[in-house]
């Protein structure tokens, strides 16, 4: 099995990539090709190398290298040399896409670097996963990340849809990592619900296509820029249905309130690094797709209704998530619901058509949430228990984790001076300026409630007498990445100069 | 020369009047009860006798117990200095009515603490009651005097109680109501019947006497004198109010005013005698209802002051 898979996985794409490099002389293309190459390299490493530890190192190194390459590629955008990194009419990067790509890269690298430690630790557990599953996990993780990069690259709704679908398919194995009954159940729900949702997104895409066809241009188009250009001429009713279906579909993927049902299961059952990936980057992908479509809608005639719908859905999501948070019995589910709450806030930002605020919120949320999930992974490994009641006295028995946990919880729930506070603040400000008074009130209520509740749960974990059955392993190594993330969130809060988004307000 | 005379007279009154007042009260009560009673000068003898004695002090007491009576006497002397309770009183700087009220509070503070100091159940009992009573009577004191200050447009007492100041008809009811409020308040403040029975010998029913149950000798003498002085001052204040009310009708010159003020203090003593012989002591739980009357009168005073001013401005 392994051998054929090896062959299939490595040889073919290697050839493809090599061909690409050969065919294109431009530096960017070659870099891009090498970026695409890296996951295959990882895959090959995952199956060639004997020692898991080595694999971990290689993956960590390669992921950072990939990030570096990407940074190299997108540098011209930020240097202001060019407006869009052109690949083809369907694939190019604008500055905002590049930001998201970089964010995804950072999240992925952090998660995988920490994962190196995590999986080592996992092998020492009383019921360790099979080596094969770990190898597969690494491979799928890398391809999953690649798919997410692709999402930001697509400027064609069709391709966008395909890439999002791929993220689902590639992340299902990550959820299935620990072959337990629970993991199985979670995976099944994730797969089925997201597939159904995504097929509605397909329907929506078709509607938008049709709206273009009937409203404006015969032949129709799915390219974002063309759609935006002809937006006023699009058939409004079709476009409206298109948007609704897409919102439904991608919203399912993003964990919008009534459709979020798969999210807590998947996040809680996946291994900590994968949950970090899911929460820190996959949600952004789904929301980004909604944002893509709302761009088109915003340029069209039916913009107000759509933004109202989105803002209200976001508000409801925030409220519902904060209510869900009240009674939680498992550490990772808690953070999963807090992600849902943040998704609500981002939806509000999208509804306000404030792309950069959406990005800002995404960055802050991803940073905080990744560190939370990684830490919760540590704790779960150290105590061997997932449930909240068994986690007490963390401050007494594992002070470093406790402090980081508290700070990232504050960061995740939007307490100043962390970055999340500022982005939420900006979003609320925007909403206030656009006279969404009720929504602002409700969102503030939701945020406050969730802050209180999360702090209550965290307090239960942190405080109390020392926890006897907690082995405090490698405090520095295991908290390096979270510490990094917390500090960066703090910096985002304090040093977020006006230059960063002077154009956006 | 005149000024010196006034000072001498004033200090004589400060030292001599209080025992006389209490003497009058005791004698009067005795007469009302059909006894001969002790001579008017008896309080002087008592005080001197006590001053001659050494004191016996509970071993649980602290410096508070020892020093409180001194502080009380000092404060009361200062009160006597700033309150125009006699018409021929030298004017004292900063005689503010709020200061007066808080000086009274200071006395009460020290008294209560010294009562608690010995750890005796009686002392604590009485202290709690004293605190409660003063708490209830405080507002009445505040706004009845406040009403007077309102009609004088100033809070410094020598202005408020200046007989030579013009006084409109509208002010007469204010003065009367304030006097009534102050008198009802004084019954509580000086712990007389029907709030407190100073002559009983059952510790559980007493307020003031139980508070000073531990004092003896010189200490007791000072406490007693402080109490007498305070009584004289308060009665003086009330009688001043009455004089203002009357002053609308009769014109006082300085001499008459002086004589009247002294005499009316003794008159207040006689009034007390009458009340103490007619009324019985109230049940403890029903004291708030009694104090409510003082409050009502002070409300009348304030309302009168406000409405009176309104009329004085806009006419009827």
């Amino acid at each position, binding site marked *: 099995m392994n051998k054929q898979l090896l062959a299939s996985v490595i040889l073919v794409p290697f050839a493809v990539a090599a061909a690409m490099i050969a065919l294109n002389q431009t530096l960017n293309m070659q870099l891009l090709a090498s970026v695409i190459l890296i996951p295959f390299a990882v895959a090959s490493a995952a199956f060639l190398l004997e020692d898991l530890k080595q694999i971990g190192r290689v993956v960590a190194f390669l992921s950072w290298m990939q990030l570096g390459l990407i940074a190299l590629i997108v540098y011209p955008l930020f240097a202001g040399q060019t407006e869009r990194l052109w690949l083809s009419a369907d694939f190019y990067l604008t500055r905002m896409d590049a930001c998201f790509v970089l964010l995804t890269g950072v999240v992925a690298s952090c998660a995988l670097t920490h994962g190196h430690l995590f999986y080592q630790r996992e092998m020492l557990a009383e019921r360790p996963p099979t080596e094969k599953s770990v190898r597969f996990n690494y491979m799928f993780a890398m391809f999953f990340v690649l798919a997410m990069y692709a999402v930001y690259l697509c400027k064609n709704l069709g391709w966008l849809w395909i890439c999002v679908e791929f993220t689902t398919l590639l992340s299902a194995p990550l959820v299935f990592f620990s072959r337990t009954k629970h993991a199985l159940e979670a995976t099944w729900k994730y797969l089925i619900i997201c597939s159904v949702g995504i097929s509605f997104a397909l329907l929506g895409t078709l509607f938008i296509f049709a709206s273009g066809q009937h409203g404006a241009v015969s032949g129709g188009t799915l390219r974002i820029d063309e759609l935006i250009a002809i937006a006023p001429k699009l058939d409004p009713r079709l476009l409206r249905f298109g948007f609704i279906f897409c*919102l439904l579909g991608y919203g*399912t993927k993003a964990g919008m309130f009534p459709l979020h049902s798969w999210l807590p299961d998947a996040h809680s059952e996946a291994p900590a690094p994968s949950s970090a990936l899911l929460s820190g980057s996959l949600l952004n992908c789904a929301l980004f797709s909604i944002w893509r479509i709302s761009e088109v809608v915003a340029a069209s005639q039916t913009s107000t209704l759509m933004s109202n719908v989105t803002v209200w859905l976001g508000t409801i999501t925030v409220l519902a998530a904060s209510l869900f948070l009240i009674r939680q019995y498992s550490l990772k589910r808690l953070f999963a619901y807090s992600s849902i709450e943040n998704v609500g806030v981002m939806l509000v930002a999208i509804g306000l058509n404030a792309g950069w605020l959406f990005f800002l919120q995404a960055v802050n949320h991803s940073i905080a949430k990744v560190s939370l999930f990684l830490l919760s992974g540590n704790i779960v490994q150290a105590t061997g228990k997932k449930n909240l009641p068994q986690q007490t006295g963390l401050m007494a028995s594992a002070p470093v984790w406790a402090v980081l946990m508290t700070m990232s919880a504050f960061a995740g729930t939007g307490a100043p001076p962390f970055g999340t506070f500022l982005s939420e603040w900006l979003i609320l400000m925007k909403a206030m300026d656009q006279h969404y008074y009720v929504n602002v009130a409700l969102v503030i209520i939701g945020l406050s409630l969730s802050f209180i509740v999360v702090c209550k749960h965290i307090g239960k974990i942190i405080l109390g007498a020392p926890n006897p059955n907690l082995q405090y392993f490698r405090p520095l190594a295991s908290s390096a990445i979270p510490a990094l993330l917390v500090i960066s969130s703090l910096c985002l809060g304090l040093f977020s100069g006006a230059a960063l988004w002077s154009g956006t307000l | 020369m005149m000024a010196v005379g006034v000072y001498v007279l004033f200090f004589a009154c400060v030292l001599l009047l209080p025992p006389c007042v209490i003497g009058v009260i005791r004698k009067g009560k005795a007469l009302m009860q059909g006894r001969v009673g002790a001579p008017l000068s008896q309080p002087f003898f008592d005080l001197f006798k006590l001053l001659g004695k050494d*004191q016996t002090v509970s071993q*649980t007491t602290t410096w508070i117990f020892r020093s409180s009576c001194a502080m009380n006497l000092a404060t009361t002397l200062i009160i006597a200095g700033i309150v125009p309770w006699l018409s021929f009183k030298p004017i004292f700087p900063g005689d503010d009515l709020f200061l007066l009220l808080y000086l009274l509070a200071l006395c009460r503070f020290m008294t209560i603490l010294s009562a608690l100091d*010995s750890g005796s159940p009686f002392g604590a009992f009485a202290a709690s009651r004293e605190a409660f009573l003063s708490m209830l009577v*405080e507002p009445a004191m505040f706004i009845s005097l406040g009403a007077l200050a309102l009609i004088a447009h100033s809070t410094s007492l020598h202005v408020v109680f200046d007989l030579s100041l013009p006084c409109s008809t509208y002010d007469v009811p204010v003065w009367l109501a304030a006097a009534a409020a102050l008198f009802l308040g004084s019954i509580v403040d000086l712990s007389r019947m029907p709030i407190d029975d100073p002559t009983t010998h059952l510790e559980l029913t007493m307020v003031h006497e139980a508070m000073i149950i531990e004092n003896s000798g010189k200490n007791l003498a000072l406490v007693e004198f402080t109490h007498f002085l305070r009584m004289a001052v308060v009665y003086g204040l009330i009688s001043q109010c009455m004089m203002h009310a009357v002053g609308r009708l009769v014109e006082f010159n300085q001499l008459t005013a002086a004589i009247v003020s002294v005499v009316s203090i003794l008159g207040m003593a006689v009034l007390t005698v009458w009340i103490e012989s007619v009324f019985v002591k109230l049940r403890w739980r029903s004291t708030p209802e009694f104090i409510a009357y003082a409050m009502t009168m002070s409300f009348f005073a304030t309302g009168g002051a406000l409405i009176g001013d309104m009329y004085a401005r806009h006419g009827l």
Partner: protein
Amino acid sequence: MQIIATFLVTATVLLWLVCSATMAALAFFGKKINHLVPSTVLFAGGLTMLLAAMFGWQINYLWDAPWPIYLAVAPLSSHLDALSSIFIGLLAVVVISVSLFSPGYLEHLSHKINNGCYWVELFLFIIGMLGLILAANAVTFLVFWELIALSSVLLVVSDLSNRQARVAAFIYLGATRIATGFLMAGFLWMHSLCQSWSFSDWHFDQHATLIPAVLIVIGLCIKAGIWPFHDWLPYAHPAAPAPVSALMSGVMIKVSLYALIRLLVMGGLVSPWVSYMMLAMGLISLFWGILWALVQKDLKSLLAYCSIENAGLILVCISLAIICHGINMPEIGALFLAAAIFHCVNHGLFKSLLFLGAGAIDCRAHTRDLELLGGLAGKLPWTMFFFVIGSAAICSLPPLNGFSSKWLIYQSLFMLANKFHSIWLSGLSMSCIAILGLVSGMSLYCFTKAIGIGFLGRPRSHAAEHATEVTLPMLAAQLLLALCCVALGISAPDWMAVMQPACTAAFSNAPVLSNVYTIPMALFAFLIAGTSAIIYVLWLSDQTNNVKKYVTWECGFGDLTKRMQATATGFAENVTYTFSPLFLYSARSKIAGRDRRHFPEDVTLQVSTTPVLASRIYMPIVRVVNWLGERMLLLQAGSIHLYLCYILLTLVALMVIGVLI
């Protein structure tokens, strides 16, 4: 001048930040922490801050934090002027005394709390308050506001194993977060009206600013412990370590009241609705706070409730200042403002003094329960002396500072009444005087109880019997505050001049305050002290009479046992009985024995009081929210068919919206 002041402030903050960072590092590597270093740093910082306040008092200077520090929409900007420097001065004094007090206090908690965390949080807490006082725009304000909240919550739970502290901290966290919510709403609204974040551009004089003003007032009042939002305060303040409760009660409350002054009074609020609402809230909490303080058995919660009372008093002054501004009587408005500021300072001083005293008792007698204390006068003589001074000050007895601010309040109330602007307003201010009178009587009751039961009489427990005097630095801390109390009392007229510029900034044509303050307090102090000294020497000193020691009067039946003294509950019983409906008061007595009518053998009396708002309003709300939380879980029942059903329903709903709208 500006350079020096800003330099001093910045230097202080940096010093503290560095120190807390080092503390954090030490704690991180599990090193033992010596209290001497941080307390010295805190002390030094306090001194520099005091200097900064002195310089800053004469200037009016606005400066932004340098690049790259920036808060998304607004710079991190600070505003140092007369008003803020008065509060900085208060903070500095309290900080100095806390720095003296903390090491000795932490000794007796050393086995319970993590010193590193304690110091780091303390530094952050103080920095937060400093920043809040200086904050010149809304975002900066919120950042420091939340910094205060979080650090103080952590300080409350610094004793990790204490369940009660945990509950208190959680309640406090909830309350402060709700306050933040209100503030956020109010600030956002104001921004959308004024299109600016800086407080100097916010003017509350149009009608449109009514709602944001109300929101802001509520937010700040929650933090200031004003009725009906006070219920968190009696939990949080007693649970914290004594120095922290001193800071919380002494400064934190004042800081939010300062924000009220800064925003609404300086912002020129005119709306009568808001100001009368504030007045009502202030009066109620004035009465409510002291009423509940009276029936407390725990010394610290007694003090906490008393803080509610004083916060109410200050709020009354502020609201009256606003009212005066509204009816165009700036000269009296300025008086009220001065009274408010002055009382803030004074209450800060004596309340911290009292809390430190309570802390001293706590760490020596190991209990704060008045029923178990008593007879400490012999054990902690100096602590008692300072506590008596503090209590006298808080009962506003002359010649201490409590009186000087109370007098100013009475004076301004009287002047307002004396203006006869309208009969109603005069009547209102007269009745305010009446209420203040009642309240001052009650606080006298309350604190005679605290001293009399806590210190006097005979020890009621073994712990109290074996208590010993606290260490010298701890006494020095209390001495400092006590001296401040006396000094501010005696030199009150001069302190009017200190508040002059602040009032002039708020009310253009403010009167010269020092002319208003006519009482020669120093003279009175001297007279009282001198006369009583003379009397003492003449009659009471041991030279003049030989004192015979004897047992307390016990009606001749043997010696009194220590249970034959008044209890705290019994001492306050008059009030509890009289106002029993307000306490939901219930007393259950049980008399047992063979012939229980004539020979009762075992008599038990149980009295209980219940906070009305908490039990009747807040708890039901919390229950409803929890119930909602429980119900929400039913949506997440685990069945995939159900989840698919949600998708269907959402689809239908969205399509209906799409078709109809």
